[in-house]
């Protein structure tokens, strides 16, 4: 147990220099952008404001002073101010609103994808070379081949136009945004809309939010379950040929027990790794779905920041995503040791 504990502590300590490295690499990347931060301010900015901006970030000083000021401000919680996307708003405040929105979209698929993927993968192995196998594999290939935006737009057209048109508006699923336009926001306590609605005890708002999440979640799940299904299928087929499966059958275990207890547990290790890392990648990878469904969350704002040259917002979002990814990898490693105790910690 001490071995495990020391391994976890070691991993956490190893993540800290990685985060420092990320901060510095992000800064270097930002330096490579054409022009310095002040040249990204809107053209109408008065010269005095620009000079104040240059003084604040020490843009007229050598690069090491700039880096030092940047890191100092970062640790004070000052990530700069957004220039064009939300003029004058501190990036920190903007991120406080945006990150919960992305988590809200990605949270349910993070759990739905492995469940659906492993279930369907198991089905393909149980009914190998039958119609169930063909169906699931076909769907998986479709999930890999369909561009996410195309599927999203098709869903929007079907549920936003064809189906209401056909049923005379009885069946009407909202197809864009996170709330019906004109609806009020609940008091922002956690910035998670669902949790805020629950705290404010406002059932209609909660229902409205949940209904808006249905299509993006369905889209994300359909597009991402394929890799897990395929991984489960191939590793299950490997395991099913091994001796201990024959032994289990010989001693009279039911097929259900053989599949779920003997085979699945041994086949699951690579699948779980993929599932966890995919789940954290999802937090940053919902960009295209956000744009397809007009949701103003992290990825959508990142694109808008790049398009409108919003220097500090780009830097801030890259850093946040990087830190999420590093923490995600850390968590993956730690969870991995719990799942597979045979792993060697060195």
């Amino acid at each position, binding site marked *: 147990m001490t071995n495990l504990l020391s391994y976890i502590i070691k991993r956490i300590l190893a993540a800290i220099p990685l985060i420092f490295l990320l901060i510095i690499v992000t800064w270097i990347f930002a330096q490579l952008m054409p022009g310095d931060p002040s040249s990204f301010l809107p053209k109408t900015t008065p010269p005095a404001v620009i000079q104040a901006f240059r003084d604040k970030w020490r843009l007229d000083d050598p690069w090491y002073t700039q880096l030092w000021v940047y890191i100092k401000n970062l640790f004070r919680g000052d990530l700069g101010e957004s220039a064009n996307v939300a003029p004058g708003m501190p990036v920190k405040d903007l991120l406080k609103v945006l990150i919960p929105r992305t988590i809200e979209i990605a949270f349910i698929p993070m759990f739905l994808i492995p469940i659906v993927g492993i279930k369907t993968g198991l089905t393909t192995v149980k009914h190998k070379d039958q119609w169930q196998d063909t169906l699931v594999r076909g769907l998986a290939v479709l999930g890999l081949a369909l561009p996410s935006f195309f599927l999203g737009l098709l869903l929007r057209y079907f549920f*936003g136009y064809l189906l209401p048109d056909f049923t005379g508006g009885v069946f009407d699923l909202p197809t864009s945004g996170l709330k019906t336009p004109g609806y009020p926001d609940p008091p922002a306590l956690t910035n998670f809309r669902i949790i805020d609605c629950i705290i404010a005890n406002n059932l209609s708002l909660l229902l409205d939010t949940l209904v808006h999440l249905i299509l993006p979640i369905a889209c994300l799940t359909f597009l991402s379950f394929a890799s897990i299904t395929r991984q489960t299928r191939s590793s299950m087929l490997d395991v099913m040929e091994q001796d201990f499966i024959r032994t289990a059958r010989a001693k009279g275990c039911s097929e259900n027990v053989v599949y779920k207890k003997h085979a699945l547990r041994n086949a699951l290790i690579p699948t779980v790794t993929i599932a966890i890392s995919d789940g954290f990648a999802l937090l940053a990878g919902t960009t295209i779905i956000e744009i397809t469904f007009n949701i103003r969350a992290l990825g959508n704002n990142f694109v808008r920041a790049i398009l409108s040259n919003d220097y500090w917002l780009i830097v801030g979002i890259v850093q946040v995503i990087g830190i999420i990814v590093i923490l995600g990898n850390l968590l993956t490693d730690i969870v991995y040791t719990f799942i597979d105790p045979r792993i060697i910690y060195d």
Partner: protein
Amino acid sequence: MTEVNYINKITMVQEEEIPTLKGPNPAKTLKNLGAFLFKRDFFQENRTSLTLLKENEPKQSRRNILKFLFKPKYRHEPIEEIEYKIAQEKSKRTLMKKLLTPLTILGFIIISIIVFITIFAPWLAPYSYVDISINRFTGSFQPPSKDHLLGTTEFGRDLLSRLIYGGRESLTAGIGAIIIGYGFGILFGVISAYFGGWVDKFIMRTFDLMLSFPGLILVMTIIAVMGRTMDNVLLAYGLITIPGIGRLMRGSVLQEKNKIYVDAAETAGAKHFRIMFNHILPNSISPIIISISFSMGGVILGVAGLNFIGLGEPDIVEWGYDVNVGSQHLFSAPWTILWPGLLIAMTALGFILLGDGLRDALDPKS
């Protein structure tokens, strides 16, 4: 009896055809000159070529079978070579049999059609490239009609012509990214596995860092830094392909590295470069080649996605950009997203099916 018959038929055919081969001097034709001068077993090779495996007169073959049955230890000299060649041919045939599944053929046909359309776009498209990229003030988002078979997108540009021309950017970006990604991936993978030590550690840590980022975010960051042109998109996708290929290559080389032929090459005095790229690389590259098709599909989807979110080159003739334009008029002009989206999906599907087929046929594991 049948097998004996078969083998003897072959040996017999050899005996017969030798004089005809000797008739015209092969060295006289320029094509065969090199082979005649430098291949010691030129005649031997010609004699045993499998094209001679034909039905022959029953008389001769019967005599040979009798010889085989009654003369002790009778065996025609090059028979082992022939057997080897037959086995080779047979393994080639089983490979083809494995490769020619309906789905793989479907994938291949899809890709061929799209490549054909892309290459011969100027002859196939009803409107010229200039005509589909200029801005008009009338005729935006017309429904399908006689003049415009699939309707028009913004600025009255013909959708069918845009679709036919649109594959060029995707395929170019795909091929370019594959060349960059696979070239550097293989290079770094081989170097990392061959030298080991701190080189290995450094390269692998860098790859880990790159892999832990979601690909799209990395590409978007590179685009933000370098500017929105198609060349940068190509470069960015090449860059994010490198670490995955490098890792795959490293694993493959590590399996080969300790084999005897590497030691033999070292003993013979070969330099590092020669051992790495002349001896180890050809033996360890097959899993990488299998994955090309998948990567191609992935890059094409990625490029389309990037153009859809508007970070590709502005105002470009590309399927993803067409979907982007059409999505702003989703409910009034759905045909403008349907066809380009379907084409992207079909292309990706073709590459994925082909990749699946290649993997099933060539991977020794499955």
